[in-house]
């Protein structure tokens, strides 16, 4: 188990502040944050490349805060892989074993084994200069895994990999995690977090602002920043009122949302996931609780289908799958109806 207690570190003008983390064995922890949020710095502190100004780092019951990097048994794979250009693939993989303490036969055996696991046996004798992003990624992983680390740290592992190879890498990482390897994976990509994490942390300006299971974090974001990260684009500043024994949220005195009963504060942000909103060409026969008429302002193709912007007094962003869009083609300025249940509305407290 990895425990970070009250870790702070100053890097020039940037601070990592009061980082507390508990990551149990076998967890796939994804640390989500924008570039410059402190993700890489935190990984380097855990790996031992830098020492914290305050706080402690514990791994498997041992305080490793002041332990040398060489003795930590923590593997780190860098964002651009940091493959040694002056060595072949096999030289890179064998680097940790080639200090003279391990016999050549054992090194060769171990290199062959890890290369076979990562499907790069055919690359072993090759120079590293002409390898693809995916191949470099596997070499970097093999080079780290050969050390049998207690903890694997991955810094943006998909950043330099073609989209077509990302699924392969994800499968590989999931497989490693299933075998019991604890992984901390930092990324700016929400989709990576959703598809890999058993636990997610969101870091912003050097602080971890939310932690929990992916479902907790993305369904109940603590603020607008986390909500945006989880792909939410519908934000409405509202005032909550109780009308006829029901809770409603009033946005700019124009739209009244029915919301599920809860202890809302007087005002705050109301969030709606784009895929929780249904769009129909006519008024739906069944009103799930909220139903508004609007005009299509923009249709943008996105990976999974279309993103439709609808003006219903306020702007709503609605996701439509490619199949649905084929069945009900829409055009700009068309009149449509949008509907969603009161439970789809997520309330954010305060002004953030």
């Amino acid at each position: 188990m990895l425990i970070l207690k009250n870790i702070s570190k100053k890097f020039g003008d940037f601070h990592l502040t009061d980082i507390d983390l508990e990551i149990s064995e076998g967890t796939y922890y994804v640390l989500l944050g924008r570039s410059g949020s402190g993700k890489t710095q935190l990984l380097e502190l855990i790996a031992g490349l830098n020492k914290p100004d305050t706080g402690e780092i514990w791994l498997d019951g041992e305080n490793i805060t002041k332990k040398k990097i060489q003795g930590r048994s923590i593997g780190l794979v860098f964002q651009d892989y940091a493959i040694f250009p002056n060595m072949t693939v096999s030289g890179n993989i064998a680097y940790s074993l080639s200090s003279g303490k391990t016999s050549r036969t054992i090194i060769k055996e171990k290199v062959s084994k890890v290369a076979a696991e990562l499907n790069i046996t055919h690359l072993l004798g090759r120079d590293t200069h002409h390898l693809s992003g995916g191949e470099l990624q596997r070499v970097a992983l093999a080079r780290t895994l050969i050390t049998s680390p207690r903890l694997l740290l991955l810094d943006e592992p998909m950043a330099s990999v073609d989209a077509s190879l990302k699924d392969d890498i994800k499968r590989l990482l999931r497989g490693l995690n299933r075998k019991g390897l604890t992984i901390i994976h930092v990324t700016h990509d929400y989709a990576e977090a959703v598809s890999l994490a058993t636990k997610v942390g969101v870091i912003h300006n050097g602080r971890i602002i939310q932690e929990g299971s992916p479902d907790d974090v993305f369904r109940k974001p603590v603020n607008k920043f986390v909500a945006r990260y989880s792909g939410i684009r519908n934000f409405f500043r509202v005032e909550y009122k109780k009308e006829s024994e029901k809770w409603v949220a009033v946005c700019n005195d124009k739209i009244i949302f029915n919301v599920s009963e809860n202890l809302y504060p007087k005002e705050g942000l109301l969030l709606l996931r784009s895929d929780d909103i249904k769009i129909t060409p006519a008024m739906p026969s069944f009103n799930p609780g909220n139903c508004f008429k609007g005009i299509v302002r923009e249709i943008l193709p996105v990976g999974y289908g279309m993103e439709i912007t609808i003006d219903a007094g306020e702007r709503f962003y609605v996701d439509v799958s490619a199949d649905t869009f084929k069945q009900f083609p829409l055009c700009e300025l068309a009149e449509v109806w949008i509907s969603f249940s009161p439970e789809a509305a997520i309330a954010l407290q305060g002004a953030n």
Partner: protein
Amino acid sequence: MYRYTPFNLILLVLSSLVLLFLVAPLLGMFLQTGVGEFFDTANDKEVQASIWLTIWVSFSATFLFAIAAVPFSWLLARKSFPMKSIVKGIIDLPVVLPHTAAGIALLGFISRDGILGKTAAVAGISLINNPSGIALAMAFVSLPFLINSARDGFAAVPERLEKAALSLGASRARVFFTISLPLAWRSIVTGFVMMFARGMSEFGAVVIIAYHPMIAPVLIYDRFSSFGLSYARPAAVLFIIVALVVFTLLRILSEIRKTPFAKNDYADS
């Protein structure tokens, strides 16, 4: 294809003038040296000894000082420390000093009254008029070329490669010898060749420390001042040719030996 615009023509004329200025004196010297007197000089034992002395003393000075200067360059490239800019200024000092002044300064240090001179005297070595003194004079004026070039080379090695090696359990020394040094190798060799070349051509500092035994630049000066231009010219031509051959060989060697610690190959292939 090159376009003859007025601007390009002006550039061409100015560039040609600079090149002519560099080439003409050397070419003139070569043309004015007769084949017979050139071979007579080449067979002159005194000339041969002085050229050989120049080469091996400069090479030894470069090699020995590189042992300390290369790690020092890594330190300058990687670490921040108090008064680093002053240290960098001190390294560049020999480049701006008049070399005779450098010789005088060094003389005070290595003469029998100086700290190094006294220490050497205890071991029965006199640094004045001795190849070791010449080596010190050559190194004093030429070290900046090696240190600055090696420092730039180390700075160009991505730091994350060193960090990756550390995270794989390598010691700092192993990281230096297997990652930093091989990847900065070209710049180090360039600096080595530059320091060696600068040491070979040094006159001002060496002549203060050791008129004898004569290195080639001192011998050329000695022949010029004692017997005149025509007597000094063949020795100068011979020295230039030898120097060019040595530099070319070193350059070729450095191209062949790109990565000295490169191939850690455990592949079956």
